């Protein structure tokens, strides 16, 4: 009979197929959807479409950088994103009469305070982040409704602001450059600094990290503050691009951001994930949405596909993790 080929293969390589897939599956998936799009979908490969896709993912992508810290630190998720984004957008538009520096300063600072509250509630008081940020986003939403007379739209008056928001630099929208910068800085923080090491340690085993002298509460606190800060930046860019702001401007953003991070392979249990994989997750989600739009799929169908993808991604991750641990 023939030689058993399995014996010829090095054991570690064979054992780690699942692990490999878990770590790099997202890159395979991104390549696959892009190839599929280019081959089957009309207009997918055009420059205009490319530009539209990366602009649409950039607002989500900026926030996903912060959410990656929250998820890897084992703090589950931040559900207060719509409030932070809408708050920033509304402040940036409504306060333009006091001058752009005031408007942008307030739009950066005040939503970041939401992150400070999140960090205190979830990081220091150790309230479950799903409940904690759901509560803070509800409180924040109430404040926005008071400030906007029940959610009135507001339109920008500053030409400079609008020009900035629709500006292209080297052929790419300004928000895409901001996203790339956020990913580069985020990657550096996560992979090369003490804070990044603290984030992985805290998420991988909270008790062990604490017993090793890692300032676990502060680590989680900072992750929430970073996320809100980035949500505020994203909100300002959205306001500048559309020159209007509304209470519901970022409805559903929390889901899109969390999807991108989880599709990228970060685990809700904490301790695993990387900035590069989150970027791949952001691109994957954006391309899939784009293909659906190009095919003329109605919005309802898009929602159903997005929901399904996240279940598949998380279930696959759990399945591979369980297989690896056996």
């Amino acid at each position: 009979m023939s030689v058993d080929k399995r014996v010829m293969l090095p054991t570690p390589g064979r054992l780690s197929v699942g692990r490999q897939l878990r770590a790099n599956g997202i890159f395979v998936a991104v390549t696959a959807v892009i190839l599929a799009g280019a081959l089957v979908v009309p207009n997918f490969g055009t420059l205009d479409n490319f530009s539209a896709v990366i602009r649409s993912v950039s607002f989500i992508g900026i926030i996903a950088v912060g959410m990656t810290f929250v998820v890897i630190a084992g703090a589950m998720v931040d559900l207060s994103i719509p409030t932070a984004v809408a708050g920033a957008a509304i402040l940036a538009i409504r306060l333009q009469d006091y001058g752009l520096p005031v408007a942008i300063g307030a739009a950066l600072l005040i939503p970041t305070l939401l992150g400070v509250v999140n960090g205190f509630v979830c990081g220091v008081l150790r309230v479950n982040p799903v409940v904690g940020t759901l509560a803070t986003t509800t409180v924040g939403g109430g404040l926005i409704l008071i400030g906007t007379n029940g959610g009135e739209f507001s339109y920008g008056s500053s030409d400079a602001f609008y020009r900035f928001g629709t500006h292209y630099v080297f052929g790419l929208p300004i928000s895409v450059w901001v996203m790339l910068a956020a990913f580069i800085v985020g990657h550096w923080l996560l992979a090369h600094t003490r804070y990044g090491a603290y984030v992985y340690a805290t998420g991988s085993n909270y008790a062990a990290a604490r017993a090793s002298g890692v300032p676990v509460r502060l680590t989680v606190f900072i992750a929430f503050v970073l996320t809100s800060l980035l949500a505020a930046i994203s909100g300002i860019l959205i306001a500048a691009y559309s020159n209007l702001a509304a209470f519901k401007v970022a409805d559903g953003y929390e889901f899109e951001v969390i999807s991108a991070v989880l599709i990228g392979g970060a685990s809700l249990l904490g301790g695993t994930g990387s900035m590069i994989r989150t970027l791949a997750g952001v691109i994957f989600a954006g391309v899939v949405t784009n293909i659906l739009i190009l095919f003329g799929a109605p919005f309802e169908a898009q929602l159903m596909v997005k929901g399904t993808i996240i279940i598949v991604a998380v279930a696959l991750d759990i399945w591979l993790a369980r297989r690896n641990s056996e």
Partner: protein
Amino acid sequence: MSSVSVTNTGAAALAPASSQAAVPAIEVIGATKRFGGTQALQDVDFRVMPGEIHALVGENGSGKTTLMRIIDGLLRPDEGTIRVLGAEIAPTALAARQHGIAMVHQELSLVPTLTVAENIALQAIPTRFGFLRQGEIERTARQALARVGCELAPDSLVERLSLAERQLVEIARVVQLNPAVMMLDEPTSSLSADEVERLFVVLRRLAASGTAIVYVSHRMDELYALCESATIIRDGRLVARVQLAQTPHDELVRLMVGQQLAERTGSDTIPGDVCLTVRGLTTERLNDVTLHVRSGEVVGLAGLVGSGRTELARAIFGLDPLRQGTVAVAGREFHARSPRDAIRVGVAYVPEDRGREGLARELSLKANLAMAALPELSPAGIVRRRLVDHSAKHFVAQLDIVPPEINRQVSTLSGGNQQKVAFGKWLATQPQLMILDEPTRGIDVGAKAAIREQILTLVKHGMAVLLISSELPELFDLADRLYVMKRGRIVGEFARSAFAEQAIMRLWSAHEAD
């Protein structure tokens, strides 16, 4: 992967003459089990006759618990078969239950928020039309408790019970099932001498009615008092099956250990300055604890599980809040509100449960080895990869961690090598005092030897060590001095020259005057 052939020739050869004709109550043939990179069991045969009280002995990490979990159906063996009274059964918990296999676990499996009676009834809750039959539950519980000679009220809440009482409830629960095979994993670790004697009476009575009993204990005198025969396993392999009456104590130990472990000799002791001083330390679980440890000295903490040894370590290290008292290291008093404060003054703590507080198992070896020393390895907040790698390689070599791959995920290492990582991560912080909580529990002989040697080397270089161990022989081998703890207090202190097993055990198990 190569397959291991299953043979049962060994079992036949080892069968005692008296029971040749009879069918074993429980028989395991060629059990093999691997966890990740660890071979937990390798082709082990095991057999107990009906009515036989049989000791399963081996060091921590030898595979005893794995074998029992396989028999209990909690673990599926990679290879091997299980037979009950000659009939092969499926390797599942359900099949084990149906064939009358029952186990008293080392970690108690009672539900603390239920009553004693409810816990005893849990496996077969009597109901009528789906409603609980409260009277029936109580009656069963009362009978079961009476059988183990325990006078607890069936309606007391389990969370209010002492460890010893819980242990008795656990045993009553299993006895009540009239099992064909009953396995007990360290059932006496929290019992007093009286209670142990009563338990033995119950077990002998059960055996006389035909139950096969598998007994696991570290206490040699108990094995000789209770068991007829013993199976010895080491490093996951069957070493021998012996009749205890024909096997002297020394011989049994030699079979178990297989190699000589490093121990402290009088000449090693260098009297140093006092490193750790604890005065009047009081917490929720500790009462006015005062002790000291000198540099270059190993001080042991002996006592039963729950006596406050771990709580003392946690309080010193800032994991549990202090109510009263002071802690000082090298004359510097400090109040640790978190481990950070303790680490800063040079304290390291290797916790008892390495999976929970010792290691981030999903992360790499080097990430774990760097975790406690991140401030030193990341000057100005930026992690210097070269420093991290260099330090990791250094400690991997020093502790002989296998495989020596610093990027490997810690969860893929064997228990012993994981423990070396949990230990080694503190060396990078250059501590003055190491508190070691059961540092050799559940690891193989090789790792145990390596860690014991490390402890002795560190002490020789002036480290102060506070060593918590439930194994008196280990404390006797390593410690220069030891304190005995009971119910959150220090109840005795012994110098090395005065170490005496009997006296120490009397101290920790004696009933209080009240």
